[in-house]
């Protein structure tokens, strides 16, 4: 752990003396990129954070939305990339644990987990397979043990993540508004550390997350203990019910240093704490180590003296340790002692306020030519291509993943993983729909349009269930920000997201920035990940079984936008071409109209059209429902395009509507009235997926064969190479 030379000078001038070693450690942790957001903070302010449903309280680590009837939803997203890249099982598991504690710290019960996973090429690379397999097991073992359903997510493989892993976890909490912790503290209140013991594992993790992986600081690995996390959840919720918690914060990156300084600064008080009171795992830990250890499964609670006994009783019941490590003072100082001896005594505002950077940015050179297309080999047999495409790791069903996650515990999961967004029922009679999406292939080609695309895709998924988007979570993952070209891609993505959020009035309720994601091959592609939460007031659209004779209508135009498409990259090994872009006006119109037709109950189901294009989206419907479909490509609305473009373009704002034939007329009336571009393009029947253009057959596949490949290919790859 170290400070940059100029940061050390700054620190000295702020406190007017040389810092002690403990002070240096505390500052290095808190001023690290991971904790301080020093490179990104200035710019993140551009995202709209307010909205009619957003509840803003001081000291919350997760976003809070009022969903009516006296209830709130909380949500947050985090990543655990560096640890997962060296220890995928423990790294991914503790990633789940970390974000769960963010949810818990507001006083709400965690009710759902989502995960976004990225690895190298699992077809070629055994290391990528190993990372993937163990990260999934890590998430499964942790979430399943907690009894919090992992209800959705996404998985993607790309060469840019070679020997690396992105493991993003989002979590949702639910509770009564009146039970939210209103963080407050007054002089004499007690500061209690609760949960797992503090050890040397995970030393310097936040620094580690901000360094590139080359140094491979392997001591920064944390061992997951989901059992103790489960007990912490129950103990804290019971303490909440007894109103024993004045203020609360989870321990994450930077350990005690960050948790203590941040909470005390937010509450505008001071603290005096004694490291000897911290329950440690190993003897002889130095105060520096205790202050920066990132041992998992710990929470910090501020309580009143009179409430301590009851809090201790609750901890005892759940067999977890709690230690009073200090008390609140009114002097705005962070005073760290060991017994009588002072090891650090810093003004809290110095600790938490790093000088924000305004890093230079420059448009990357590669972007000048990337949208130019090269001549591709022509395809003679689309059926054959389609069959192997359905088994491509990025297209294949992710059932091998979500089948290992308990996605039903808590008995809220109305729409289970395997469709578009997942839907939970809430105690106020409403429903919450949620999905996370990313697309580094498109973000690489056009960081702005790519990021907007992820946002729109997540919205689309939520809309498919009948939900109106009410909040967004963003997770911005990039390489080294000191490289102006990388920083430019960061800014472009952020601006795109901001524009979309403003236009659609979807507030950003939380997010995270992860920088310095570097692999032996260089920086990762820009990988923003967007989570969208949607609310359904009445009834979600639960996909009904598609049967013989049902109609398939597409809403939205298909355009010549093949850049970053799975087809270009997987089939033609070509990175480039025009990135799909979202037309805001059209996007809004389509969203609103689809929600309207869902409400009028004309549809059996709606599926969004995204990765792999129309060809994949329709095949998914067929395979999930085990029914064939006849599609006339000449009817697909949009520009006049070659066959491969109609099949595989990943243009946004497109929805596939499935309905009983008897509702077709009524549907067409609504769609026409709302002036959206749409067309009846197919009919479900038989047992074959058949794409035709005019009288020419383009693709002809047996559903059962296609399904076998699609369902099993990921599992086979992982288990048998």
């Amino acid at each position: 752990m170290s400070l940059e030379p100029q940061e050390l000078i700054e620190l000295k001038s702020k406190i007017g003396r040389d810092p002690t070693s403990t002070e240096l450690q505390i500052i290095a942790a808190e001023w690290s990129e991971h904790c301080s957001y020093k490179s990104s903070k200035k710019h993140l302010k551009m995202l709209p954070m307010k909205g009619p449903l957003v509840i803003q309280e001081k000291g919350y680590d997760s976003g809070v939305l009022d969903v009516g009837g006296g209830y709130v939803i909380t949500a947050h997203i985090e990543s655990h990339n560096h640890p997962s890249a060296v220890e995928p099982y423990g790294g991914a598991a503790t990633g789940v644990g970390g974000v769960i504690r963010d949810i818990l710290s507001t006083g709400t019960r965690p009710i759902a987990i989502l995960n976004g996973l990225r690895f190298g090429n699992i077809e070629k690379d055994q290391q990528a397979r190993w990372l993937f397999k163990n990260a999934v097991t890590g998430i499964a073992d942790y979430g399943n043990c907690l009894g919090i359903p992992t209800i959705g997510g996404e998985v993607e493989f790309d060469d840019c993540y070679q020997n690396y892993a992105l493991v993003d976890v989002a979590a949702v909490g639910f509770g009564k508004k009146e039970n939210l912790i209103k963080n407050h503290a007054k002089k004499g209140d007690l500061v209690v550390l609760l949960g797992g013991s503090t050890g040397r594992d995970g030393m310097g993790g936040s620094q580690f997350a901000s360094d590139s992986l080359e140094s491979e600081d392997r001591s920064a690995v944390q061992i997951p203990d989901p059992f103790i996390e489960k007990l912490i959840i129950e103990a804290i919720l019971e303490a909440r019910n007894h109103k024993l918690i004045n203020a609360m914060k989870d321990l994450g990156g930077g350990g005690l240093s960050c948790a203590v300084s941040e909470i005390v600064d937010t509450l505008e008080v001071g603290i005096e704490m004694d490291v000897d009171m911290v329950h440690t795992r190993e003897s002889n830990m130095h105060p520096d180590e205790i202050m920066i250890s990132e041992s998992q499964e710990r929470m910090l609670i501020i309580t009143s003296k009179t409430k301590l006994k009851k809090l201790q009783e609750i901890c005892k019941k759940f067999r977890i340790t709690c230690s009073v490590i200090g008390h609140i003072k009114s002097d705005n100082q962070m005073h760290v002692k060991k017994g009588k001896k002072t090891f650090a005594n810093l003004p809290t505002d110095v600790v938490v306020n790093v000088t924000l950077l305004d890093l230079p940015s420059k448009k990357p050179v590669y972007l000048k030519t990337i949208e130019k297309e090269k001549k591709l080999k022509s395809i003679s047999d689309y059926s054959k291509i389609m069959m192997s495409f359905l088994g491509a790791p990025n297209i294949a069903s992710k059932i091998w993943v979500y089948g290992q996650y308990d996605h039903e515990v808590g008995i809220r999961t109305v729409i289970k993983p395997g469709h578009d967004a997942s839907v939970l029922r809430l105690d106020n009679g409403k429903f919450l729909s949620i999905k996370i999406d990313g697309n580094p292939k498109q973000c690489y080609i056009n960081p702005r349009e790519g990021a907007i695309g992820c946002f729109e895709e997540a919205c689309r998924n939520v809309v498919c269930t009948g939900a109106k988007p009410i909040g967004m979570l963003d997770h911005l993952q990039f390489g080294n920000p000191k490289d102006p070209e990388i920083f430019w891609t960061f800014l472009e993505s952020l601006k795109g997201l901001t524009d979309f959020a403003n236009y659609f009035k979807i507030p950003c309720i939380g997010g995270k920035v992860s920088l310095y994601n570097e692999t032996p091959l260089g920086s990762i592609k820009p990988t923003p990940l967007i989570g969208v939460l949607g609310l359904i007031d009445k009834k979600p659209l639960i996909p009904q079984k598609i049967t013989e004779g049902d109609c398939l209508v597409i809403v939205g135009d298909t355009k010549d936008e093949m850049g970053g498409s799975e087809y270009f990259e997987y089939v033609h090994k070509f990175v480039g071409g025009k990135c799909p872009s979202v037309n805001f006006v059209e996007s809004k119109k389509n969203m609103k109209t689809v929600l309207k037709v869902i409400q009028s109950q004309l549809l059996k189901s709606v599926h969004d059209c995204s990765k792999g294009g129309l060809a994949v989206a329709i095949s998914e419907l067929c395979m999930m429902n085990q029914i064939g479909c006849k599609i006339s490509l000449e009817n697909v609305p949009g520009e006049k395009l070659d066959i491969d473009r109609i099949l595989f373009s990943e243009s946004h704002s497109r929805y596939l509507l499935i309905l009983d034939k008897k509702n077709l007329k009524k549907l067409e009336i609504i769609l026409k009235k709302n002036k959206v571009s749409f067309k009846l393009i197919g009919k479900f029947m038989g047992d074959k997926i058949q794409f035709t253009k005019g009288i020419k057959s383009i693709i002809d596949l047996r559903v059962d064969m296609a399904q076998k490949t699609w369902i099993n290919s990921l599992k086979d790859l992982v288990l048998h190479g």
Partner: protein
Amino acid sequence: MATFNVQVIIENKPGISDPEGDTILNDLVLKGTHKTVSKIKTAKMLKFTIKEKDKKTAESKIQEICDELRIYNPVVSKVSVVVFDA
């Protein structure tokens, strides 16, 4: 060529916590009548049957397998290999 039994023990490196061992100790053993136990560590064991020309080759082969195939993750675990005559 001879057949050997090889025991591979995979355990957490020193200093890395072992929540499972702690739970077995605190919630099972110490709750009973046996208070003389002070620590429990868990480990995983794999017993290989292998045909090689001698003990030494058997040992180095197994070590190779463990490293190459990532039977354990050296970041958190260590492995020890003991060869027995079958």
